[in-house]
């Protein structure tokens, strides 16, 4: 089980003992959510399944695993089944006990699904719309259909209570995934920006686009559900914090030879903070730490002054 061995080393390196705390927290949250009130549990199942689907679709190590590991698909199945347990076991003690099986069956099938898309549409207006923001142009092209479905769902359902936020959260999650890929050193240097400027411009560009999508949905949602306006503000602020941390993490770990950064675990902790406000300080700490690290690391690749 080489894959589990790698995950063990990653968890040990990134989280250490904190891993057990997070597993316990995730299990508690999962139990609370499934016990909360009618139908919430089903949304939770949707989110969990989506997170696994998104992770599997965007994972960059599939080719490596398939090439070098024995019984690669089985290894991925085992990986998903194990990482699902903190979320699925609590279901068994609630009215949603049957979701346990739904979750495990879906994640069991996941590694057997191929995602290679043959769509070659260029949507050239993206180039004009996003003005050389290659992270967005490439990312939107890869996920266009899903982004449209999620945005329209959020917009149409915006008068309702929970639905639009779930759809927006999933939408934002896709946007975050754009920033998990390292651009080449040549593209990084093409901006001719100093590290702090590059960080600021990446963030402002991402935040601008995220607000453009989130704002109308949240405003309508707040108008129809006046008790939610404060949570909606927290929602957008927290999503901006996640985006800032994703960008900072990317540049903190940037190595021109690696196109992928492995900080999924930190990101999952960050995302849990949306539902567990107690994790908010931890998210702030992650951001401050990563930002300082990013500026230091970028100074190897960019001139201090432009």
């Amino acid at each position, binding site marked *: 089980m080489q894959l589990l061995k790698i995950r063990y080393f990653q968890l040990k390196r990134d989280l250490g003992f904190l891993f057990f705390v997070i597993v316990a927290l995730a299990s508690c949250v999962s139990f609370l959510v499934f016990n909360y009130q009618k139908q919430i549990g089903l949304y939770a199942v949707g989110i969990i399944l989506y997170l696994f689907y998104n992770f599997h679709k965007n994972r960059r190590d599939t080719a490596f695993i398939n090439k070098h590991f024995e019984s690669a698909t089985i290894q991925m199945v085992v990986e998903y089944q194990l990482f699902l347990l903190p979320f699925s076991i609590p279901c068994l003690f609630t009215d949603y006990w049957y979701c346990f099986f739904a979750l495990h069956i879906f994640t069991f099938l996941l590694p057997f699904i191929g995602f290679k898309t043959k769509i070659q549409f260029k949507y050239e207006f993206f*180039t004009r719309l996003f003005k*050389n923001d290659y992270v967005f142009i490439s990312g939107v092209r890869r996920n266009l259909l899903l982004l449209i479905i999620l945005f329209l769902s959020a917009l149409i359902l915006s008068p309702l209570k929970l639905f639009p936020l779930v759809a927006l959260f999933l939408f934002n999650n896709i946007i975050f995934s754009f920033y998990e890929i390292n651009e080449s050193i040549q593209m990084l240097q093409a901006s001719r920006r100093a590290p702090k400027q590059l960080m600021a411009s990446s963030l402002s560009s991402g935040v601008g686009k995220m607000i453009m999508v989130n704002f109308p949905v949240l405003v309508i949602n707040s108008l129809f559900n006046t008790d939610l306006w404060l949570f909606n503000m927290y929602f957008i602020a927290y999503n901006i914090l996640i985006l800032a941390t994703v960008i900072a993490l990317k540049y903190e770990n940037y190595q021109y030879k690696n196109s992928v950064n492995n900080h999924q675990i930190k990101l999952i902790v960050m995302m849990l903070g949306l539902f567990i406000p107690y994790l908010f300080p931890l998210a702030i700490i992650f951001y401050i730490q990563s930002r300082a690290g990013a500026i230091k690391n970028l100074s190897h690749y960019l001139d201090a002054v432009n």
Partner: protein
Amino acid sequence: MLSIKDLSFSYNEEPVLKDINISFEINHIHGIVGLNGSGKTTFFNVLAGFLSPDNGTILFNNAEVFKKNIAYIDAESFFYPKLTAAEFLSVFPKTNSNFNETELAHIFNLPLDEFIENYSTGMKKKLLIMSQLKQDKQLFIFDEPFNGLDIESNKSLQYIIELLNKKGKTIFIASHIIEPLFGLCHQIHHLKNKNFAKSYLPKDYDLLNMEVFGEFDEHLKNTLSKSL
């Protein structure tokens, strides 16, 4: 002159480059040769500023080299698959006024409106080279530029390197495919035991072939006879 003084670099306290003192003529083409693991790529990374040396200085005409003036063309680069080649090139500022995207793309046989995901390894390499030619840089570092290129593109690249040199650019090339180096380089430098062992002028290239690659043959024979 590009002067390197007392340059040392180590990975996890294991020295990779040690006390390098060497001067490279600017406006020249320099080949760097050495066995796998001899530190060629590390040397390039230090030269490009990606890695900070433990100690030592690198000065280009007695001044620090700005990263924006260095073109680094590595062996394998990441490309966003869902960008077209034209979009990729548009990311780079056009500071070389002579750069003609359409003509160069034609010479390199690159369809610019195609998604990069449909490009072969050689095409990606040519695209990367184009992106660097679009900018007016002083120093060009090519790490294994001839790998994955067909004969025609190989020739085009050699000609481009010569042209860049004629325009006063300083060029460094590390390559396992040595034949093009003999025709291109003003000097070839042998990296061995964490330092530059010797520099060869064109008249000494036969000697280089014998000393460096003769040694490699010997090394290979010894290793294989022990391992098999």
